[in-house]
């Protein structure tokens, strides 16, 4: 039954990566911008959650509060996303690609230091939500309930995002915009507000991912760099701008990593890049890519 745990591990890993790459892909699909500062938003979510949890630790607060706090990470990251989009990104919609990439690169550098200023350089340990949930026995294998919770949250978020985009006004408008921005403009949709929506949604998803990871590991500077790269890999594999791509891509990355570690422990990192490179060579727009080459 070990393979069952391996699959679960893969799912857990896929869950966090999915949330980040989903946000990255929404921004890419709706706005056509590859947000290099996305990892920083993830880090902001993680720091917010970790900081709130450790600050509350002394207060003897009810356990359930520490779970609600995780949402705080998503909210703050969303808010930072709002500021970022309004101030720095919105002036660049009509500018060349290199400027859009560089401004998000600049934002990334700036955020790294802002995080340092706000939360200091030390690592935050906020394992309370992880600890209080304990573990469960799954047919002889012990598994932390928190990881199961993260998987469930990711599935719920996927469903909610899907519902949001399929059923709500803003969601449908966002889809219309990503399909044909000129027509959307001519119909009188509030393009700028929708862009902000998309960016805030993407940022909040990244923040949520960070907040969910925070209880399982120390949160420290540079926290967002590795997930950003993995989200790139997911986006490349799944397809630029595709929500389905983010989902399938994350599953592929998560499970390949999980089984890769068991079967080929020596090359756990390189194998992901290798797969991404092969897919790019064969199908450069990714498995479900919508933005055409």
């Amino acid at each position, binding site marked *: 039954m*070990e393979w069952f*745990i*391996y699959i679960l*591990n*893969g799912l*857990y*890993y896929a869950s*966090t990566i999915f949330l980040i790459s989903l946000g990255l892909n929404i921004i890419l699909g709706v706005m056509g911008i590859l947000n290099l500062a996305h990892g920083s938003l993830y880090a902001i979510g993680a720091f917010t959650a970790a900081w709130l949890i450790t600050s509350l630790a002394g207060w003897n607060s009810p356990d359930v509060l520490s779970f609600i706090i995780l949402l705080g990470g998503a909210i703050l990251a969303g808010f930072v996303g709002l500021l970022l989009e309004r101030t720095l990104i919105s002036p660049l919609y009509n500018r060349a690609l290199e400027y859009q990439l560089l401004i998000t690169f600049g934002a990334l550098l700036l955020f790294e230091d802002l995080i*340092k200023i706000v939360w*200091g*350089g*030390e*690592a935050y*340990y906020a*394992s309370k939500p*992880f*600890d209080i949930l304990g*573990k469960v026995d799954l047919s002889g*294998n*012990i*598994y*932390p309930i*928190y*990881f199961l919770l993260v998987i469930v949250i990711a599935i719920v978020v996927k469903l909610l995002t899907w519902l949001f985009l399929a059923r709500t006004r803003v969601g449908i408008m966002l889809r219309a915009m990503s399909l044909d921005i000129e027509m959307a403009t001519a119909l009188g949709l509030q393009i700028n507000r929708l862009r902000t929506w998309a960016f805030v949604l993407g940022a909040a998803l990244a923040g949520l991912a960070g907040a969910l*990871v925070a209880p*399982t*590991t*120390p949160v*420290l*500077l*540079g926290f967002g760099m*590795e997930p950003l790269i993995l989200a790139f890999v997911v986006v490349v594999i799944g397809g630029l701008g595709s929500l389905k791509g983010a989902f399938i891509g994350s599953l592929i990355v998560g499970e390949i*990593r*999980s089984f890769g*570690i*068991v079967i080929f*422990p*020596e090359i*756990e*990192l390189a194998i992901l890049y290798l797969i991404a490179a092969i897919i790019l060579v064969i199908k450069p727009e990714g498995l479900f890519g919508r933005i055409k080459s």
Partner: protein
Amino acid sequence: MEKTRRDFIKIAGGAAIGAGTLLSGCREEEEKVVEKRGEIPKEPVKIAAVSFLTGVAAAPFGIPGNNTFEMLSEKINADGGIMGRKIELLSKDEAGGVDAQVKLARKLILDDKVDVILGYISSADCKAVLPLSDELGDLIVAYDCGTQELMEGSHSPFPVPKYELGFRTAATLGLDNIGLALMIKKYFPDIKRIAGINPDYAWGRDSWSIFEESMKKLMPQVEVVGTWWPPLFTTDYTAHISALIGAAPDIVHTAFWGGDAVTFTKQALGLGLFDKMTVAYSRGEPIPQEIGKDFPENQIIGCAGPHYFLYPPQDKWPLNKQFVDEYQKKYGKYPTYPCYHAYQAIYSYKAAVEKAGSLTGGWPTVDEVADAMTGLAIQTPSGNITIRADHNAIEDGLFGFTKLTSKYPFPILDPERIEVFPTFVVNPPVGIRTVDWINSW
């Protein structure tokens, strides 16, 4: 010697006739070069202390180490400084990667003109920075990093010293991992299966290879059932832990430290790893303090030498009591091994300067300090250290098993099962590579 070493600076300084704005500091340097013997400059002695002040290694190593440097500088200054010169401590962050550290060290020596750099927790930083000592002609003392390769050549016997001006005032990771193997042989003589999970860089790779070699010699019947190499700062070890459980070793070797050790231990607790095997932490001494009482009992812990706040017993070795008390008073925590390492570094430098200075009567040159440092032996809160001809210090090795007591909010080393391996048992002779030494057993 002196001439060649300072040539570069002289050329640059002397040639700067009428040069303008970017001249900063060259003249000052020139004056220093022509300093006469027997004089002791009035300005403070500049000591750069480089430790992780940010990032995951800050809390467990960098901050305690830097705290100790600060505490001891104040203490030395209060007692009159080094040969009357006050210490001006420049605390620098070791974060930012190897390249950033190479640049920083170069800046400290060439631009800030420090007298000595005491620093480096990361083995990678040590390997990259120590060569700069000879290149730039300044003393660099590695205080905490463990890679045995730092002072070893490519084959035995190797010529010593490797660096004329580079030192390390602590023992190598050879001690940690040979000691672990000895512990396992003593306490688990019948095991059949071992595995390793180590961070994917020099520290992890070297630690495992020394451990594996030692185990092959000491317990040839033991089989390695797997090795895992997660990158540094991995946040999700579940896949590795499940794979470990699947491989079912009796003992897992790990050189994890800091955040990685915490993440791994927490997640391993969640997945029930400790119910099925024992984990041997090669430099695990600070980890139980970081995790608290959740840290599992009966795991093997190495102390990076004989460094432990409860050993040597404070009643028997007052220096340890004094150090622990002062540190605890000032920072509210028990000193961990990086604190002891910092002590060794700054007091070795002080002792070497005083030893060399007492001969000439003035402030010694860099080379004279280096000469004095070779063969130096001083007393520290952990006992005695000796800096050998290879410019590397050697110490005893302290190991134990975790045990929860009512007295501390974290598991301490079970006093019943503490092992101290004498210096010559866990350190190779001068000029012999650790691996070759192990193979010669």
